[in-house]
């Protein structure tokens, strides 16, 4: 039960709410153990602040095991610290050195308005899902699960896409603030599976439109999203979305013309 012996200098973004100006505040945390997680180190700092009667630093976190997608910090200019396949809550202090200065900022994106300190509002992701990130299979409709055969490679690839935790690191790290990796992970998962094909065209058209309307930037294929994604989601899913999109646009164009369209 030993306390550690590292000292860290933190530069953390503090902002009371969206209406006020924010600024970086310097903090020093002593006795940091290398076994601590990054969030536990912030907990220790917060306990110090609260004992003094100061406002604790607000940050989103929940499961602390890398799956809920709640934690969301730019650590030293990189989303989740930029370690491969790692969320902020899985970053441990042994990755830092005694005396390091660490800059902690919130996700910055027009589509993710700031709430307080390091907390941002990511409900834009829910809005994208609502635009078509589902298969319309009401409870009770389903046939026997083994009636739909899905080759293992397809199931595996769908699972790769479905692993997305919706943390928003893709948006935070994208030089353009694009939400394309998040959106395409869902489009791609459902386009790969036979169950998802019935709605595939409508889905991609509406999800892309919603993504664009929410204030996300445009994808220009930097692949920085893929590099910081804690679940290693590939930009191949963006490519699949691009294919699905143009195919759907062409088909709908034909439908519009023959059906007299809107």
């Amino acid at each position, binding site marked *: 039960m030993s306390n550690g012996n590292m000292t860290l200098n933190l530069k953390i973004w503090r902002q009371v709410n969206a209406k006020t100006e924010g600024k970086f505040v310097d903090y020093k945390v002593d006795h940091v*153990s290398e076994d*601590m997680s990054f969030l*536990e180190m912030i907990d220790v700092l917060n306990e110090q602040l609260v004992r003094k009667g100061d406002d604790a630093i607000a940050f989103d976190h929940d499961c602390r095991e890398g799956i809920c997608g709640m934690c969301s910090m730019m650590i030293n200019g990189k989303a989740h610290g930029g370690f491969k396949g790692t969320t902020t809550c899985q970053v441990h202090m042994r990755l830092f050195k005694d005396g390091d200065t660490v800059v902690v900022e919130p996700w910055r994106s027009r589509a993710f308005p700031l709430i307080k300190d390091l907390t941002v509002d990511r409900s834009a992701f829910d809005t994208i899902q609502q*635009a078509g990130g589902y*298969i319309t299979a*009401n409870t009770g409709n389903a046939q026997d699960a083994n009636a739909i055969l899905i080759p293992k490679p397809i199931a595996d690839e769908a699972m790769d896409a*479905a*692993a997305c935790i919706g943390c928003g690191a893709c948006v935070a790290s994208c030089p353009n603030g694009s939400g394309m990796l998040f959106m395409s992970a869902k489009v791609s998962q459902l386009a790969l599976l036979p169950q998802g094909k019935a709605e595939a065209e409508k889905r991609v058209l509406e999800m892309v439109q919603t993504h664009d309307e929410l204030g996300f930037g445009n994808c220009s294929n930097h692949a920085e999203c893929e590099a910081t994604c804690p679940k290693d989601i590939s930009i191949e899913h963006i490519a699949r979305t691009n294919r699905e999109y143009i195919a759907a646009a062409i088909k709908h164009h034909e439908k519009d013309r023959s059906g007299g369209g809107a």
Partner: protein
Amino acid sequence: MSFNLDSKIPAGPIEQKWDKHKFDSKLINPSNKRKFTVIVVGTGLAGGSAAATLAELGYNVLSFCIQDSPRRAHSIAAQGGINAAKNYPNDGDSIKRLFYDTVKGGDYRSREANVYRLAQVSNNIIDQSVAQGVPFAREYGGYLDNRSFGGAQVSRTFYARGQTGQQLLLGAYSGMMKMVAKGKIKMFNRREMMDLVVVNGKARGIVCRNLLTGELESYAADAVILATGGYGNVFFLSTNAMASNVTAAWRCHKKGAGFANPCFTQIHPTCIPVHGDYQSKLTLMSESLRNDGRVWVPKKKGDTRKPAEIPDEERDYYLERVYPSFGNLAPRDVSSRQAKFRCDEGLGVGSTGRAVYLDFRDAIKRDGQAKIADKYGNLFEMYQKIVGANPYEEPMMIYPAVHYTMGGLWVDYNLQSTVPGLHVLGEANFSDHGANRLGASALMQGLADGYFVIPYTLGHYLGSNTLEKVTTDMPEFKASLKMVEEQTTKLLSVKGKKTADDFHKQLGHIMWEYVGMSRNEAGLKKAIAEIRKVREEFWKDVQVPGDAGNFNTELHKAARVADFLELGELMALDALERNESCGGHFREEFQTPDNEAKRDDENYAHSAVWEYTGPNSSPVRHKEELTFENVKLATRSYK
């Protein structure tokens, strides 16, 4: 007041009860469904699936979630899998066998009829999830893959890599988002339920805190569904998420909902050990590791040699020694207790002495590193990330941790609590797992309740009751609002010297020490006395900075700790009153000569249901007798 603990189990043979019950239930015609509003609190597997399904049926659903999105509920963290009696592998599984295994696994403290229904609908869950696009693991032929889990003798577990909970939750979440888009679900994110509003004896609404603005909000409805998960965080350290808490359930308890078997907690044997007093949570390593890992401690006390330097004859592979037939695959409660016994004897390893080895040396020797990496690669990586040690080269260190709570609000066959109109789903209720839950059964229960049970039983409730119109202007709502406001003001005005977490940790230590893996009368009495002291100190010395008018995370924490401090006492009391050992509840006074749990079916084959009687009076213990007509009571043996 005496509780009505009528379980409303339908008559007839167990195989026909659910069908008969569905047929006997009242229906509501489609055009009338849209006149009803239902509140669903919680968006995990149970709450999410219920909200989506009820909205599909036409009800207006108000859905509340504590995180920033329903997709983040803690069901997402379940790794292993979900059971179903599909019998795809043709290895002898059936609804009856799944039913039997679950009742036995729960050490005969669950309700037969509920468990049988669970096993019946388990198959529909798999069908439904696949239809939604849940990418379960497949064989090369395209068929679903199954594995054996938690020592089960059949392969009935469906899985999606190590993220089954995530995929099932995202399935339910996608169903919800579909209904949000259709306007049938109204989402309220970052809301914490603070009170249940009861009007004319029926649950008719809730008061909740908008966590962002601090504002208290009231919502009225025709029925309330609670799906707010378990209360494992009463131990401070558990595998639960940080926001998992008992407040919603506890406030319902105070409004008249009976709390059943609160002492039934599951302590999972394979977690990463505690390493420091700053630690915020514990991480589970999937149970599947025990299929290939061997658990041991050194035979000599204080052996400081590196594990690799300790020869085989100086190692105690204690699970293999004590349980020759099940060995390392002994059930969760049994394995956990054995680890505790070894550490209590001073044989534990690691810097704290509260850990045992889980060694893959022999498996790697037998199968090669590649094969082991293929099976457990992601788990080994996760371990290395947290601990900084390589499990391919040195054994993992593991220790038991609080993982799941079988106890919860009492519900009848319709999932209705003792408060009419308040229905409780998933881990928040007590119904299906008895005194010990089997691996891969929690996901099954949550989704069974939400997709396939509540849509029928809620319709029956709404159809067979006259529900007068209520609005949030009514005095019952105002009174709830005032109660919560007063508590908030009180918390903010203490201005003490200790943080909410300080008290939570204190409580956690007491709970772990005396109400944890093994319990005894003296310890439980001590726990009750100490919890009372901590509670008293809490209200005198807690520091909650800031005010109630904004996003005040310390205030949120403090309100939750206040409820944990009350629940903790009830758990100790329940453990004290249950003079037997069963499943996760191990009383040292009641054990066989070789340290196994000794049940007392004569006197304790019942669920203990606690009634809240006010802040200054003792809770009252009621009983729901359990009858076993289809399963023969026997002693669990894993020797």
